[in-house]
């Protein structure tokens, strides 16, 4: 009982810190991002993690919603990449921010960042490209204050295609990093 309330206090403190952190990071990464977007950026809301919506609009709601949100793994667990790129697309920054918040609030949580490529090119070279993508996500999360000990990178290259076929659409759905908690 005693421990629980302490844990809750800690969680609230951490989640507040997270909100502050993601706002400033969002701003520094993309000058056009205003605070509203960076917070709502926890647009994880739009991306499916409804319970996170409203986080951080003010301290009070961050308190309650944050607890809820930080207790659950964000629902969006896949982000996609451009051809031959390992840079995080701006539309997915909010997803990473939500995962960063979750991981900071749940210090015992560990996640495997699974890097994937499309099937063009050789298998072992793609293994290396998939690792680059997953490392790019890892660095983003670390900048967000996630402990490296919570993160592991495993590249699958082109070995676990999400979609078969040689269409551009299939390729785009295969170039991804998945969060496996």
């Amino acid at each position, binding site marked *: 009982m005693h421990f629980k309330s302490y844990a809750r206090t800690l969680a609230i403190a951490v989640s507040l810190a997270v909100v502050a952190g993601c706002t400033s990071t969002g701003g520094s990464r993309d000058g056009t991002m205003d605070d509203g977007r960076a917070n709502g950026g926890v647009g994880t809301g739009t991306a499916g993690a409804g319970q996170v919506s409203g986080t951080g609009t003010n301290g009070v709601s961050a308190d309650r919603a944050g607890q809820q949100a930080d207790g659950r793994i964000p629902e969006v667990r896949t982000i996609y990449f451009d051809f031959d790129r390992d840079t995080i697309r701006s539309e997915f920054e909010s997803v990473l921010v939500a995962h960063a918040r979750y991981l900071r609030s749940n210090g015992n949580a560990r996640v495997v960042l699974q890097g994937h490529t499309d099937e*063009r090119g*050789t298998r072992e*070279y793609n293994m*290396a490209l998939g690792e680059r993508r997953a490392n790019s996500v890892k660095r983003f999360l670390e900048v967000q204050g996630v402990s490296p000990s919570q993160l592991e990178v495993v590249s699958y290259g082109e070995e676990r295609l999400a979609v078969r076929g040689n269409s551009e659409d299939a390729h785009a759905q295969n170039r991804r990093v998945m969060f496996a908690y």
Partner: protein
Amino acid sequence: MKVIMTTWLGVLLLLASSLAQADLTIEITRGSDRATPIAVVPFSADGESLPEDVAQIISDNLERSGYFAPLPRDAMYDRPSSGDEVRYGQWRALDVRYLVVGHVSRASDGYSIRYELMDVSGQRRMLGENVSAGGNELRAGAHYVSDQIFEAVTGIRGAFSTRIAYVTAQGTDQDMQFALYVADADGHNSQQVLSSREPILSPAWSPDGRKLAYVSFETERPAIYVQEVGTGQRAQIASFDGINGAPAWSPDGRRLAMTLSKDGQPDIYVMDVSSRNLERITNNSSIDTEPAWAPDGRSLIFTSDRSGGPQIYRHTLGSGQNERLTFTGNYNARGRLSPDGETLFMVHRSNNGFQVARQDLGSGRLVVLSESRWDESPSVAPNGTMVIFATQQGNNGVLGAVSADGRASYRLPSASGDVREPAWSPFLN
């Protein structure tokens, strides 16, 4: 029939199992215009019905090589079964240069194959031999005879008695099934050596043909394993943080080159197999992967994107020197050297996708050998005459092969699922 099942880290190992056969068939896609006309007359068999058509296996082998154009059976007016019975004029009239005749009989412990190779224009016997084959070795006997004929005519050692390893895969994403097989070079006698729900890739034969090194994700992390093909006994030999990939045996079989990213980015390492000691070969912020040994064991080739896109480099051991080998196009990867070390085979990206290409290392000239848009994983036959690779037919992965001169090609379609990652064994006899 021996079936051993071992649960090891959650993986099912099936050995020498006829339950898990997935033989590949062969479709010739292109015959060489320089092929030598030959006739392989159906072997007589004392009226017995045999489980295999030995002459047909020999004929198919010779045709697939691209070096021979066998005469169709319905064009044979005469069916001699020994050299004494050959009427040369008949075969000369059919423009046949070589003739193979023979006889198969049952022996106490299997079969006896007697064959003769005749030079039609010289009207002489070039080869003649009695071969004994065990009860289930009739195909092996036919491959042996094919090897002898191939070498007698071309001067090149035959590679029909070799094997191939390959990987099959079915499903997508989290719901997949992978298996590693070995089969005869003609796709027959397939045996599953490993099956897993997690990826299997990069099989590589040891130089003595007894072991396979490969990458398996069965622990949900990539690791390199070495497995005895005959017994199924195996060991995990590399499971560092990050990538453990692309194992390649040194020609003496004592070392494995591999790709590890434990120190930050993918680099080439060489492991002493018995001591497991590691030596780092490359140290570069770029991707370095897909190592392969030169036949003399003095250098390694590998893929690196240090110049931007992937190109193939050579690292001379002991010198620390890296030399770029490929300059044609912006994507050349997964190089393999011919047995004489003078020709490089690789995956080359053209305007029309990815093909298997050959580069003469002396002149630097690159020639595209394969024709589909999704060709990869070239592996060279131990006699250097053919390259087997992974290609696509419809939406399915199949194996293809092309002669080193590009003139002849064939495919090995499978009944189900994707087939990929072929590795041609060394000579086994």
